């Protein structure tokens, strides 16, 4: 029964190609939006859960677990407090702690975060499915003037082995606080990981210390920059100074002096990545950290916190998905409206079809088929738009958000969505089809117009 109808439906749609084209465009855009939201969602989830693995605990100053995870792993936000170096040494020396890698954050280089750590970082850090960090070229830093950069840093700034770079104190990327006198040299470029590591400049802890010493020393000679730098310094870099229970004082000088005192000890650390000797010890050590009396610390299980974090943004994600589903619904509703509106001027067409042998069921089928064809064309147009958009935007998204969106053949999920759109399109066609069916029976062969 569909054989004679398909050609008719196609020709009839072509006859109304402007409205049909707009309908396909509407559905296509809505489908592209739906598939796009899902692609970004799954890409984000993947890069999220792939960011860290094989690290049993992350230790930081007491704060929210999510916040600790965000700044230590994702380089999002800042630590309000640090951990003293003694605490790090203490925790590292505990039994059942297999390894402990200190992280010191708070500085930047042209918009990329600078991470102070030890060369153990490169041997213990794992991402994705327990993949170690690999060097695209070069080797870990050997001294305080060496730097290892992530793949995005290398791409964005055009750096390679031997390039020199200066580190700004604080996170402002404008560069007014660059230390021209203390350049770093790139000794290694990491292979791409699809994690925030790609957007990180790694230097040794000693280097971080030197930056801060250098900053202290440089102060008097450059008065023009004082306030700005101090301000940044207060905001970002040396939380222990504020945390130390100093009475609030308006003058920056005094605070700075105080900091200087603090820096008699090695500088504060932002977080520690811990590996344990046996999984069973994990919870013990976590408890031990959380009840550590010298300073308030927090230990989190990265996997659990990742899940928690993902769940907390899950509502937003579901809302986005729901909105895109509704947009698709709106597109199909638009198609139904157009189809219904055209029915009146098509009464004669239907009557002619009946006079040449089409049954009311054929008329019904013709309209459902037309909707189905529009929905199918819309679904395929949406898929094409998705790939076109991904092709254009993927490098931009990678560069701006560090989010790697894979361009794959459509997944089963996507095919299912497309199938459902076509099915929904056919169902939406039932309403005008029923109307046409009734008209046809009422009109008979002669339409009185």
């Amino acid at each position: 029964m569909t054989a004679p109808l398909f050609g008719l439906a196609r020709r009839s749609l072509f006859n109304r190609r402007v409205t049909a084209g707009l309908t396909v465009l509407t559905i296509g855009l809505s489908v592209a939006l739906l598939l796009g939201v899902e692609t970004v969602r799954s890409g984000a989830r993947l890069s999220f859960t792939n960011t860290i693995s094989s690290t049993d605990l992350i230790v930081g100053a007491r704060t929210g677990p999510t916040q600790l995870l965000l700044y230590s792993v994702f380089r999002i936000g800042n630590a309000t407090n640090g951990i003293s170096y003694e605490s790090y040494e203490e925790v590292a020396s505990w039994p059942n702690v297999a390894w402990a890698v200190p992280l010191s954050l708070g500085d930047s280089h042209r918009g990329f975060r600078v991470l102070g750590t030890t060369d153990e970082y490169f041997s213990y850090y794992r991402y994705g499915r327990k993949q170690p960090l690999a060097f695209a070229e070069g080797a870990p830093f050997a001294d305080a003037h060496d730097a290892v950069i992530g793949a995005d840093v290398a791409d964005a700034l055009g750096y390679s082995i031997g390039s020199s770079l200066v580190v700004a104190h604080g996170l402002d990327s404008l560069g007014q606080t660059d230390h021209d006198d203390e350049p770093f040299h790139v000794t290694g470029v990491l292979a791409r990981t699809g994690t925030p590591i790609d957007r990180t400049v790694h230097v040794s802890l000693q280097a971080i210390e030197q930056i801060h010493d250098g900053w202290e020393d440089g102060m008097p000679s450059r008065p023009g920059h004082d306030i700005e730098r101090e301000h940044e310094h207060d905001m970002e870099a040396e939380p222990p100074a504020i945390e130390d229970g100093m009475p609030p004082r308006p003058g920056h000088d005094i605070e700075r002096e105080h900091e200087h005192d603090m820096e008699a000890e090695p500088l504060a650390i932002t977080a520690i990545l811990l590996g344990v000797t046996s999984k069973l010890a994990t919870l013990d050590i976590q408890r031990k950290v959380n009840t550590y009396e010298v300073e308030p610390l927090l230990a989190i299980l990265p996997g659990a916190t990742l899940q928690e974090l993902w769940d907390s943004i899950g509502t937003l994600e579901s809302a986005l998905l729901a909105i895109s589903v509704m947009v698709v619904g709106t597109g199909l509703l638009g198609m139904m409206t157009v189809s219904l509106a055209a029915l009146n001027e098509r009464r004669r067409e239907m009557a002619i079809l009946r006079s040449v042998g089409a049954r009311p069921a054929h008329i019904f089928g013709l309209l459902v088929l037309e909707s189905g064809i529009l929905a199918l064309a819309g679904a395929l147009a949406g898929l094409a738009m998705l790939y076109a958009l991904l092709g254009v935007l993927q490098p931009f998204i990678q560069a701006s958000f560090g989010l790697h969106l894979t361009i794959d053949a459509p997944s089963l999920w996507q095919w299912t969505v497309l199938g459902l759109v076509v099915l929904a399109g056919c169902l939406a066609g039932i309403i005008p089809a029923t109307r046409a069916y009734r008209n046809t029976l009422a009109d008979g062969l002669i339409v009185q117009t």
Partner: protein
Amino acid sequence: MGLTAERDNPRLESESYGEGEKALPIVAVQDLSFRWSVRAPYVLGIGELSIQRGERIFIEGPSGSGKTTLLNLLAGVVTPDSGHIVILGTDIASLSGPERDAFRSAHIGLVFQMFNLIPYLSAIENVLLPCRFSHARRAALAEAGTTPQEEAHRLFSHLQLDSEHLLRGSVTRLSAGQQQRVAVARALIGKPELMICDEPTSALDADAARAFLQLISAEAAASGATLVFVSHDRSLAGMFDRTVELPKINQPAGALGS
């Protein structure tokens, strides 16, 4: 449902319309009454109307005399409230909706007033439409040893439509007379036994209307179809074998004295 069944089905042929029984009418209407709804007055009440095979009959009546309703009944688009409409030995009033649709597409060719054609199909595609929907018509052509395309072209040349260019293009570029001839070709393809025309000349001037009428009666005769022509235009009556004045046979008031 195979539409060929209509021609072979013993039930449908129970009154056995065959070569030896030429006296049996092709259309026999009896005690027909019809109203559009239960509360509406009757619009048709016809005691008897019979049309012989091969006859060219002119049914004449002013607007509102029930011509259109009668056509809808003959074509099996609507069913009477009572009475019989026996066409080719089958009482179509007793058939189901789909059976009537199949019967119509197999045995009846229809030509209407203006705008008879599907605007988004070419002339040739319009003519082939009945073959798309009716297996019976395809089968009839196959039996005659021809294809729908060949038959369409044969009809076109008989109806003096021979510009291939015009026939492949949009039908909306054809003149009114050309469009009506295309509609005739469409009604006649596959040799239906009955051809019903409803005011097909209303858009033509008098000369064109006469020329058109000559063409269709010749073509109907050539394909052996019985021609039922409905119009309000009495001046055309002379070109037919017989004229039936609808107001004279139609007594809807009491719907057959009931």
